[in-house]
């Protein structure tokens, strides 16, 4: 489904990704963990080409996003903006800071892209948007503007907005980090439900117990590399590498009461 092949990315002289490869099967939920600054956010942004990267390719169902290999020249070529925009329709993304459009109400936020990007008839898009907002538990908030919604509600609108494009895969970048603790649960529940419905997901999170519940596989990143990956219980309870062990120890020390 998703193939990330040898992606490298630098900011100036700082190598943030150093040849990351990752493949995600249809319906699989992959959780990415790792210390702060390890490049998790950058990886997700590269998958969607919100950042350009120097080396490597990303494909969804075999279709490239961003760069395609020119076989004759043996080189990577950047796709046109139009092609990239079209490719992004297959990838939904939810951000740490929600990024709802403040001048549109919840319903308009969810409907805007299906209507304007995909050209879906307004009535159908609206019916679908209401369905999605109901699914994330916001059927009574469709007409509210983002400033009038709590963080948890805003994030659930953002999830509905991404789902409205019928993406093949969803990317979540620490979607609960900006939320008050009591609002985290409602967002995680929406993601659980989505995972159970068979959505393919890549989830970056610092919530280890949630990671364990939802993940089919956990990927540990450090210093721009995938250091270790495996089944949740195996990676969390009997990690093979010292780096994971050290990370988990720090994590447990911090959150033990």
């Amino acid at each position, binding site marked *: 489904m998703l193939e990330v092949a040898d992606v490298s990315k630098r900011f100036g002289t700082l190598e943030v990704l150093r040849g990351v490869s990752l493949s995600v099967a249809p319906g699989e939920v992959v959780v990415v963990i790792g210390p702060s600054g390890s490049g998790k956010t950058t990886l997700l942004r590269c998958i969607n080409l*919100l950042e350009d990267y120097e080396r490597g390719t990303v494909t969804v169902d075999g279709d490239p996003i961003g760069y395609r290999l020119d076989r004759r020249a043996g080189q990577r070529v950047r796709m046109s903006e*139009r092609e990239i*925009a079209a490719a*992004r329709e297959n990838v939904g993304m939810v951000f740490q800071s929600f990024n709802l459009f*403040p*001048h549109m109400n919840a319903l308009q936020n969810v409907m805007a892209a299906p209507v*304007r*990007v995909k050209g879906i008839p307004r009535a159908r898009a609206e019916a679908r948007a209401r369905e999605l907002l109901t699914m994330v538990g916001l059927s009574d908030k469709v007409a509210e503007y983002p400033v009038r919604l709590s963080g948890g509600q805003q994030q659930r609108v953002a999830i509905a907005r*991404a789902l409205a*494009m019928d993406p093949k895969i969803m990317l979540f970048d620490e979607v609960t980090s900006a939320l008050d603790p009591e609002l985290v649960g409602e967002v995680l529940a929406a993601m659980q439900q989505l995972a159970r419905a068979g959505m393919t997901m890549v989830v970056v999170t610092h919530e280890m117990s949630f990671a364990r519940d939802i993940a089919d596989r956990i990927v540990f990143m450090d210093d721009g590399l995938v250091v270790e990956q495996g089944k949740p219980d195996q990676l969390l309870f009997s990690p093979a590498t010292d780096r994971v062990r050290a990370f988990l120890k720090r994590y447990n020390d911090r959150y033990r009461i």
Partner: protein
Amino acid sequence: MKEFAPLLHGYWYLLRGAGMTLLMAGAAILPATACGILLAMAQVFGNRFARSAVVGYLFIVRGIPLLVLLTFTYYLLPLTGIDLPPFWGVVLVMALYYAAFMSEVFRAGILSLPQGQWDAARSLGMTRRLMLQIVIFPQALRLASPPFVSLCANLVKATSLVSIVGLWELTMASREIVERTLAPFQIFLGAAAIYFCICYTLALYGRYLESRVLHGH
């Protein structure tokens, strides 16, 4: 009260002058806004050549008094052989002059949107054009509207300069009445009051827009 008798005789003439002032300002604001938006777009999205062209234009306009440009348009237009009535000549100069300041206002509006808005729009598969149309511009224009309105008030005040190059509007009208009545204090005060009514209304409107921007919807 008797001192203000000259004003009573001249007020109709002054109001006609004010009408001309508004006409002139309105005629200049429309193209100034359009050019300002284009300049802002060129500066934010243009290639290096377009960007430096805009920067050069802003440098020149910000550094030369409007009065210099108006005066020399008045003298130069006939020399260049362009057959433009003086009214449209000054409207053109004012529009080009204020376009530079408007572009700064619109550029600030575009740039002050958080990166997340661009990210979200792009991740939904929007092309640049669509993204600008439904996500960026509606918000940027809203953010830019209060300073835009105070620029308009500024432009209204600046129209008084065209009286120096001999065009007839409120300031010229007041000078004509002063020549007949020899009551400069009263007449110019009257003209100032009219300008104040126009510009203060705009200022209040700008403040209202600003409070709306600050407090969200």
